């Protein structure tokens, strides 16, 4: 141990700017808040197109054999792909419906990350909270079948809220009680939840008696989120989850900007020491913030199982918890910003599926584009440098505390 440098050293504590400000640069004004996200999305789509072009074997053949046609061919490939993307997202009532179906869970999960950012906590445990919330919602949906329609649906949603809330609150409690950094604990809890759900799906509690694979029984029809537009076309899958997401955004707006506890959340995010001196119970706030964040992610899990899958399956969280981080950044951690960003991500998902179906471009390209959006938002300097934007110098996006403190 004696070889360690500065064993007793305390980390420097400069005046701490809010994590939320640092991450999103939202204080830099409206122009900045709108132009950078737009350029980030556009740039990500352009980079996606470049990847599309250089990985297309046919285009390479064209370049070798008839280089004169190359640019025209590139244009036709890219425009075919992106018009399929657009068509799948907005081109028809069915496309709109699919966009909304994909948007609802990511909006809920994005709100979860946004609440954390506002309070200075980085919730990367969305995946685990989605799984726990979803599993509890499924359990309610297959066990309390005696309840009639709206009651059972609401009870299952409540299951999602409680399950996710407990899973998130656990990380908050660990931080408050022992100082364990929430990034580490939430990453670890993601895996605990994932393997736990794999085990549960094989137990008699969830399992379909005559099947061996890890898929749960179906939830009762009364537990489903009702489909909204089947009176227009029975194929339209859009369900009550999107209303739930908008209501949740409204609730988060009220919570953060109109309620006392929300004020305390933001105060802790702005300056934990200041909040403590002002008499706020910071430990309790960490637990409540993570409970609320977890509950929102758990609701995203309930939305997935009650709106689309109607049962529990392995890994039904499908990376939504990580997409949510990009969503919160893109939406500047503002509830309505998250809703808009969620519609964009939902459109990319729905469009990506159409792109795969009609022009055979793997849907994973959408994931690459989403990753690029995340980094262009988190590193506005990249975008500014690329487009020679002249804006007031803003603080870099960073977590002000390392994960030991």
């Amino acid at each position, binding site marked *: 141990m004696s070889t360690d440098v500065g064993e007793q050293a305390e980390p420097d504590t400069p005046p701490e700017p809010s994590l939320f400000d640092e991450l999103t640069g939202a204080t830099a004004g409206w122009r900045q808040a709108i132009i950078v996200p737009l350029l980030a999305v556009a740039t990500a789509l352009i980079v996606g197109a470049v990847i599309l072009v250089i990985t297309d*074997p046919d285009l390479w053949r064209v370049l070798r054999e008839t280089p004169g046609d190359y640019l025209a061919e590139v244009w036709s490939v890219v425009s075919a792909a992106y018009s399929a993307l657009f068509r799948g997202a907005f081109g028809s009532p069915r496309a709109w419906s699919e966009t909304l179906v994909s948007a609802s869970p990511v909006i809920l999960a994005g709100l979860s990350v946004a609440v954390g950012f506002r309070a200075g906590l980085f919730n990367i445990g969305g995946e685990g909270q989605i799984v726990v919330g979803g599993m509890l919602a499924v359990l309610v949906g297959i066990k309390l079948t005696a309840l009639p329609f709206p009651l059972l649906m609401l009870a299952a949603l409540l299951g999602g809220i409680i399950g996710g809330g407990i899973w998130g609150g656990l990380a908050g409690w660990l931080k408050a*009680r022992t100082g364990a950094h929430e990034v580490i604990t939430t*990453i670890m809890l993601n*895996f605990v939840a994932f*393997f736990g759900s794999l085990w549960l799906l094989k137990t008699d509690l969830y399992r379909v008696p005559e099947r061996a694979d890890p898929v749960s029984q179906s939830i009762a029809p009364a537990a489903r989120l009702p489909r909204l537009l089947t009176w227009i076309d029975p194929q339209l899958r859009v369900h009550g989850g999107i209303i739930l997401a908008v209501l949740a955004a409204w609730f988060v707006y009220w919570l953060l900007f109109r309620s006392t506890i929300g004020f305390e959340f933001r105060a802790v995010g702005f300056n934990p020491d200041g909040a403590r001196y002002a008499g706020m119970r910071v430990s309790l706030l960490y637990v409540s913030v993570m409970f609320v964040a977890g509950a929102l992610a758990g609701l995203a899990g309930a939305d997935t199982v009650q709106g689309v899958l109607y049962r529990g399956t392995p890994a039904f969280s499908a990376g939504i918890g990580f997409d949510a981080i990009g969503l919160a950044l893109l939406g500047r951690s503002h509830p309505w910003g998250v809703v808009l960003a969620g519609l964009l991500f939902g459109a990319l998902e729905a469009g990506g599926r159409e792109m795969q179906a009609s022009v055979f471009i793997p849907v994973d*390209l959408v994931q690459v584009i989403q990753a690029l959006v995340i980094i262009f938002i988190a590193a506005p300097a990249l975008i500014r440098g690329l487009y020679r934007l002249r804006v007031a110098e803003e603080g870099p996006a960073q*977590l002000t505390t390392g994960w030991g403190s």
Partner: protein
Amino acid sequence: MTTALTDARAAITVRTPAEIRRARILGILYLVLAGFVYLVFTLGADPGTSASFGLSRPTDAIAVPDATVPVRGFTVLIAVVFVFLGAMQLTRGFDKKANVVLGIVFGLFVLAFLAWAAAGKSFSLVGMLQATLVQAVPIALGALAGVLCERVAVINIAIEGQLLAGAFVGAIVGSASNIWIGLLAAVGTGVALAWVLAVLSIRYRVDQIISGVFINIFALGLTSYLTSRILVEIPDLNNSGRFLPWEIPVLGDIPVIGPVLFNNSIFVYGMFVAVIVLNFALFRTRWGLRARAVGEKPKAADTVGINVYRTRYVNVLLGGVVAGFGGAFFTLGSAGRFDENMTAGLGFIGLAAMIFGRWRPFGALGAALVFGFADSLQGKLAILQTPIPSEFLLMAPYIATIIVVAGLVGRARPPAADGQPYIKE
């Protein structure tokens, strides 16, 4: 001279309340384990049954007979040892040897468990240990990549993405040329992603966790995309072959140890070399002292003339070398081909191993071996038909890490400046 100094220091060491608490918790833990071993393993086995552990394989030069132990007697013995160690821990304490004792207790507990699980059957201990070592390779290399980065205060949660990208490029280049060039390309890929992490977090001072999340999603998306787009079309690009085990002459013939330690692929040897070299470099060289200074107190390091930015770049890129090598293990060391998302979270287990090993190379190796053991054990449990669900063993590394970060059994303390960008004034 030095020993006298150390002795003098030991004499004036005063145990902090946290240490005393930890010693008490450990003592109680040993006693609880003694009870557990007796109640579950001893009483759970039928009287008179015995378990046999295979100590050599049919192909070995020197055959060692199987070790057969009576389950009840063996587990009672272990329970008694636990009671003794627990009592010692509570009354006298082991001070500096506490961690060694903890390791011994863990090893004995595993043996008791195996004796119970294999009661009435035979079980290849050598095969198990070998599987553990192989399973530990990507975890340990991922953890070492993390150690290199975090010792200079750059948080690296992109290990998973680096491993995955390394595995992918290794498979493609290895198929197109040969596996050695494939290995080189995998290392290059690890370095390239490390460079992205370095530029984002050091130059642009982007939040390091977000940079890591970006690299993970990007690597997963791009490799999956390219797999469906190219590898499915051209299967010849996804058939690299792999490095075969190479037995070290003479050493490989030693019973038990030989087949486990000295008959492996270059990845296992590479892992040991990396751990030893890194441990020496970090704690015994000027380079290591400077790197650690940058991780603990960058401003002070800068004041005495250490180039903080360059030190960080160098370490993050070296981490990329190690992670790329670890990534190649998946394709060139194990499967011989690439599959979508084939790292399956092992990079995050590497992150856990780094924390569990307290940001030290040998600690990381130890943690990787424990986690690798849990992983290879869950494969064996189904064969032995124990009632323990394999998922519990799969989640064990993550729970263990939460326990360690929460400081319930000794606190893991990261470098002081971990995660904080440095701004030169």
